[in-house]
């Protein structure tokens, strides 16, 4: 007995999958307009390659796999020297102090009412402001790992990066976020 084959019905794609794909996309690209564009491109690509659909996966799984490729293509495009240059280093890079804190970027003491501040509704928007200041790729990797709580292996596979590359990105993102929160929240 053969398994039932899935079929495509592109007339129902938008009603059935647009919101699901949008949520999937926005959690990875951190930009609602871009996320919507990627969903639209996914539907176009789906129409174009509908003849290649073998019916083994569900319609939704098949569309998600197309969207994943679109997201990876997007990040490959922005994974340029520009992204690297945006990082302000926090440590000496040469000489006998290599790897030590730069004086002007040494962490400052925070005031003791940190726990009270957690109640503050402005905290969420400040965290968002600081995340938005990160280079796009850093923000995406940080959100996937920290906010969306994806497994390391899954992020590496989706973004085609190594685990050590991921930890370097996360480290740089967190160091920058810490500094941003220190300047704009704790010591403001």
């Amino acid at each position, binding site marked *: 007995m053969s398994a039932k084959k899935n079929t495509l019905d592109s007339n129902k794609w938008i009603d059935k999958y647009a*919101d699901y794909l949008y949520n999937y996309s926005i959690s990875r690209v951190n930009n609602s307009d871009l996320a919507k564009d990627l969903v*639209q491109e996914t539907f176009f690509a789906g*129409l174009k390659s509908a003849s290649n659909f073998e019916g083994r996966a569900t319609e939704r799984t098949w569309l998600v796999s197309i969207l994943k490729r679109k997201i990876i293509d997007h990040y490959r495009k922005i994974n340029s020297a520009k992204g690297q240059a945006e990082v302000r280093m*926090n*440590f000496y890079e040469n000489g006998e102090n290599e790897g030590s804190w730069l004086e002007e970027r040494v962490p400052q003491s925070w005031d003791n009412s940190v726990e009270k501040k957690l109640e503050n509704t402005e905290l969420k928007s400040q965290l968002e402001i600081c995340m938005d200041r990160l280079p796009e790729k850093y923000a995406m990797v940080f959100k996937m*790992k920290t*906010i969306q709580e994806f497994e390391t292996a899954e992020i590496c596979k989706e973004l085609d990066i190594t685990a050590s590359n991921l930890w370097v990105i996360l480290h740089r993102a967190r160091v920058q976020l810490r500094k941003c929160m220190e300047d704009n929240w704790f010591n403001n």
Partner: protein
Amino acid sequence: MFKRFKLSCDEATAICDKSQYGEASMKELIPLKLHLIRCKICAMYTKQNTILSFFYSGYAKSCKEVKHCFSLEEKEALKVVLLKHKEL
């Protein structure tokens, strides 16, 4: 022998970040603990990092409750665009 355990502040904070996700190995954690004993700046970074992780996890919880949707108008417009694309 102790050279093996020596870390720069950059390396120590990188391991500290990794440990926030529970993914630092013992081989990384031992030199980190030794580094934190003698480096007050990194010890402070670690303490603050833990506070921030607490904030991030609260933020993550609140984000998961938010559902993003296309508006009805956007869906209708998308249907028109898709139909046109189909006819090409």
